[in-house]
């Protein structure tokens, strides 16, 4: 990098960090966009859970009956209640709070055989860990989010005349159009980009930047949050759970209806209950709210009742203003507030962001097709690699995501570790797409992979129709497939844009030669 003007140095930074991190960022943004509807994807991927009109109270009572019959001696019971976003009722016994539970039919209270699936949770976890070991993933994604912030600010510096450029869209002009599209998408939802990159960092803020905890509290995070903070509550609970099972007299559990009503009055809609020491005099009922009754992220918030008298023992903690600020920022990122209109807004903004990153990546290679060796030998090598990797990351990942939906319908229902196989199919498709992109000419690879992704999106209802008896009994599943249809049409429109024409036809030929060299 030579000493240059500010715009030139910012431009250099934007281009190179954009290329190196653009691949990572696209994967994070696309899976994050899908994770907006993680619960709905879960519902679609568990087609055995029936649609129903059962109230939470009735469902809770059926869950209790099941637990009393099958896990009478357990130290704790957990009930996941049906909510607006997911019709399922799940129960588990013992200390585990989630996962591994049994699904019940909310109408009859009987055990349901639900297919094992990675579910929408896979996209959510991939979004912030990239399926790496959790701590490593969080750091890699955090670094990418930091680079995103840098990219956005450098982009603003490069395009000082941002609004003038925004209104100069020149379609069907090859490279110019890619640049215009990249800029338009960048400017159009700039507040969203800035917000989502920054709030993404705020979620794990003390992991990324422990300086203030180190300086003020010698690195002790529990001390930093005082006694009522994160650590205290859990410890208290564990003590309650260990309480000698034999010494305590048995007692009838209180009626859940008034408990649920009071919890709903204070916390809003309830997602689940845990009952410590059920059937004993020291029983405790803990009610957890559905995430997103407010913007503030209410993760870990709960309310405790006496399990015998039904009296409220502990109200939810109200955070201090500074802590509330952090939680509101994290909540902004999680997009659990505002119901479905807000969720759609985040979904669409996420798609635009993914499009901005994809056009940026394409722009990088389109620009250099004419003179790939202008910036030295290393750079020329990178350009050659960049073309197929672009295809595999943008088109291939899209294909892998749709492919996972298909895997959910096509894999045998009783396959052992089925969820793991769905994930394997996802990564296998992604790896194959890279191989395909290396073997085929660039433009053909783009069109073929995007075409296959479009086809799989458009034909997704067919997958349900062929494998299920009542594919659309639950309206949410039908809506998901309609969304897939819309995404398929969007992909078809994109393919129509990816073809040699005018200026692009001229630059398209050398690129094909380049691909053959590989």
């Amino acid at each position, binding site marked *: *990098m*030579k*000493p240059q003007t*500010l715009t030139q*140095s*910012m431009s*250099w*930074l934007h281009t190179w960090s954009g290329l190196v991190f653009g691949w990572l960022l696209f994967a994070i943004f696309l899976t994050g966009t899908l994770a907006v509807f993680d619960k709905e994807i879960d519902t679609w991927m568990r087609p055995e859970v029936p649609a129903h009109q059962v109230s939470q109270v009735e469902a809770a009572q059926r869950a209790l009956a099941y637990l009393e019959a099958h896990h009478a001696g357990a130290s704790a019971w957990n009930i996941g209640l049906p909510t607006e976003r997911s019709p399922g009722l799940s129960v588990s016994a013992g200390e585990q709070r989630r996962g591994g539970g049994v699904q019940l039919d909310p109408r009859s209270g009987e055990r349901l055989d639900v297919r094992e699936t990675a579910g929408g949770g896979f996209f959510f976890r991939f979004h912030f860990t990239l399926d790496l070991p959790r701590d490593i993933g969080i750091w890699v994604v955090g670094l990418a989010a*930091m680079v995103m*912030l*840098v990219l956005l*600010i*450098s982009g603003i*510096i490069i395009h000082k005349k941002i609004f003038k450029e925004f209104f100069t869209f020149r379609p069907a002009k090859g490279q110019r159009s890619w640049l215009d599209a990249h800029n338009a998408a960048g400017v159009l939802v700039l507040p969203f980009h800035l917000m989502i990159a*920054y709030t993404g*960092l*705020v979620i794990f*803020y*003390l992991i*990324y*930047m422990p*300086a*203030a*905890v*180190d*300086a*003020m*509290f*010698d690195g002790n995070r529990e001390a*930093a*949050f*005082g006694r009522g903070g994160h650590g205290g509550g859990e410890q208290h609970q564990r003590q309650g759970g260990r309480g000698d099972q034999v010494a305590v007299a048995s007692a009838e559990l209180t009626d859940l209806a008034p408990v649920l009503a009071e919890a709903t009055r204070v916390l809003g809609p309830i997602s689940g209950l845990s009952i410590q020491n059920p059937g004993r005099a020291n029983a405790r009922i803990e009610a957890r709210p559905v995430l997103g009754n407010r913007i503030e992220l209410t993760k870990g918030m709960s309310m405790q009742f006496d399990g015998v008298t039904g009296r409220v023992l502990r109200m939810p903690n109200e955070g*201090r*203003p*500074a*802590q509330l*600020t*952090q939680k509101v*920022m994290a909540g902004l990122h999680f997009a659990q507030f505002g119901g479905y209109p807000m969720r759609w807004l985040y979904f669409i903004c996420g798609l635009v962001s993914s499009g901005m990153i994809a056009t940026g990546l394409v722009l990088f290679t389109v620009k250099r097709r004419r003179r790939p060796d202008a910036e*030295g030998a*290393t750079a020329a090598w990178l350009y050659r690699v960049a073309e197929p990797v672009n295809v595999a990351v943008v088109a291939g990942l899209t294909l892998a995501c749709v492919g996972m939906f298909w895997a959910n319908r096509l894999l045998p229902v009783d396959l052992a570790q089925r969820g793991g196989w769905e994930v394997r199919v996802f990564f296998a498709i992604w790896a194959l797409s890279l191989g395909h992109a290396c073997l085929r000419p660039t433009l053909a690879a783009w069109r073929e992979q995007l075409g296959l992704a479009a086809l799989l999106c458009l034909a997704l209802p067919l997958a349900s129709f062929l494998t299920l008896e009542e594919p659309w009994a639950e309206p949410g599943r039908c809506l998901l497939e309609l969304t897939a249809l819309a995404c398929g049409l969007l992909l078809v429109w994109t393919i129509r844009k990816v073809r040699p024409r005018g200026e692009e036809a001229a630059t398209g030929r050398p690129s094909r030669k380049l691909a053959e060299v590989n």
Partner: protein
Amino acid sequence: MKGAMTLSRVLAAVFGGYLFTYAFTAALARLLPMAPGDAMIVATLASFLIYALAILWAFACKSLWRMWGGLALALPLALVGFWPQLMRGPA
């Protein structure tokens, strides 16, 4: 030679920028007139913007000398942030 210069700038931006931000956050948390728990949160929330600006600074600087000069401000900031620990000495 040009590659080495670029590499040194990238390293300075990523690691030098992080060290600067670390020191800045510690100093800010100590100086903010708030309860320690609140100051910790506010300073840490500000840190990501500071890190982004530090990275941009490392690339915007005309000369490497000026770049390192800016990042070297981390030393006095760290002194402010960790003053009580330094006074106490090694435990």
